[in-house]
């Protein structure tokens, strides 16, 4: 037996928890990959080709399929981070008692939460790129800047994974996720500049959209394809602050939920 340290955020504890996630993921990766590839194709066909060919010529000098293809990355990130985090955390805690087992080992809540959000963010960082790859088959030109997209997706997904865990630790019943989906996730994903530019919104709505982390991700992804701008540093900073704030909130809420 190796010695267990009393330090915070021990890499061995974090990778141990992540190894559990990897073992489980091996049993369902095909279904996840299938939906991650097919969903952007459906969206691009519906919005990019359907809407783009009939109602919208282009947005801000971009063809509509390029506009939606780059914006869809944000949708993929929130769907592959917030939902698995909310439902996964709730099920593992309330139905499977998984966290009781993990916390009986030398792992504390902070390490558990960190490992969980890191794993979800790694997955979302990977799957978040799929819409971009699919969009290339619809005419989007590859650019070197796009190599940074997994990093942008990862940081954003950290935040949404933390938000999902904090939510799961707070709600009383699994049905309560309906409130969160309707009141938070749907508006966030719709008003992020994915399907239409936010500068067309009324002032109040635009101001609200500008604090939406997904909007900052959309901007970064578009600029990675069509040229970075100096304000992208600010976009990335917003995402980093969001990620750290949600991670700490998740640790706080989960400690209250898991430790009597």
């Amino acid at each position, binding site marked *: *037996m*190796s*010695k*267990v*340290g*009393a330090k915070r955020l021990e890499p*061995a*504890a974090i*990778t*141990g*928890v992540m*190894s*559990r996630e990897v*073992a*489980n993921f*091996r*049993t*369902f990766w095909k279904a996840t990959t299938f939906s991650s590839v097919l969903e952007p194709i459906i969206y691009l066909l519906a919005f990019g080709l359907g809407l783009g060919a009939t109602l919208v010529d282009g947005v801000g000098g971009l063809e509509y399929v390029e506009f939606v293809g780059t914006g869809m990355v944000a949708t993929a990130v929130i769907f592959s981070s917030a939902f698995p985090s909310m439902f996964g955390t709730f099920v593992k805690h309330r139905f*499977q*008692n*998984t966290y*009781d*087992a*993990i*916390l*009986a*080992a*030398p*792992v*504390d809540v902070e390490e558990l939460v960190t490992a969980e959000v890191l794993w979800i963010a790694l997955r979302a960082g990977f799957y978040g790129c799929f819409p971009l790859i699919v969009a290339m088959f619809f005419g989007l030109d590859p650019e070197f800047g796009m190599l940074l997209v997994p990093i942008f997706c990862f940081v954003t997904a950290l935040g949404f994974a933390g938000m999902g865990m904090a939510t799961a630790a707070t709600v009383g019943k699994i049905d309560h996720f309906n409130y969160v989906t309707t009141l938070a996730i749907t508006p966030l994903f719709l008003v992020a500049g994915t399907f239409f530019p936010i500068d067309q919104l009324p002032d109040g709505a635009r101001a609200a959209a500008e604090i939406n982390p997904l909007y900052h991700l959309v901007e970064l992804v578009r600029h990675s394809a069509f040229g970075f701008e100096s304000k992208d540093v600010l976009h990335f900073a917003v995402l980093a602050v969001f990620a750290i704030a949600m991670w700490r909130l998740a640790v706080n809420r989960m400690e209250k939920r*898991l*430790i*009597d």
Partner: protein
Amino acid sequence: MNAIEMRGVRKTFGEITAVDGLDLDVPAGTCLGLLGPNGAGKSTSMRLLTGQAIADEGEITVLGHTLPADAKVARGEMGVVPQLDNLDVDVTVEDNLSVYARLYRVKDVGEAVDRSLKLARLTERRKDAVDKLSGGMRRRLLLARGLVHQPKLVLLDEPTVGLDPQIRTELWSLIDNLRGGGSTILMSTHYIEEAERLADEVALMTSGKIISRGKPSDLIREHAGRETAEVYGPPDKLAEVRAAAEAEGLTVRPAGPAIAIVGAEKAQNGVVPEDAVRRAASLEDVFVILTGEEAE
């Protein structure tokens, strides 16, 4: 040296006091059975020992580590077998073990997994998903998972609850081997037979406190004497026998459809009917007398 020391430990959940000034020592190398009815505070005591619950008052030391400050270090040296099955059911048997070997910082994960599979007699099923295993196999795997890092102290929380007798006996044999190997074991249970067969000492717990403790034979002698007489019959007859026995100063308790006169060897004046079934006093008699609960 004590592996576990709890002093004046108190834990409340709102209005409910789950653990009420608990004092408990478990000497290293012994098996202590924590016996009590449902709601006695056994599981909460277990959670306090892993740092998954924080005491409102009192002091807890596990393997020389003070809790809750050093709970993580203490958990590294103890193994926990939970009451509820919380295995990863879609994952293979060996992956369930290797994940926990990593969580416990085991250096040679492969060796630890092989040893644990052998202990649980699951080597042939190592590549199977857990949901393909029988209930007994899953329980053995849970036990093996808690022992994957060869802990100094093992906490068994109701290890055989809800299992059929055959699987229970299988588990008992594994726990007995563990005990024979010199591990310190704290086992909560509400099965009398389990405590009697496996524990060096039994601590009877009710309402969050230890109310009596000792070797099963000593507890029986102290609280239940040598002999118990079970009397069967219609309610009128049982009420009459009960009144007569109590008038003699004997303890009478319900025993399913019968009544049991405890310490029947001391009965005089024909208090025990001739058709009563006489048997050796048992830990069950002690349990019911002291806790006022029916035993399982």
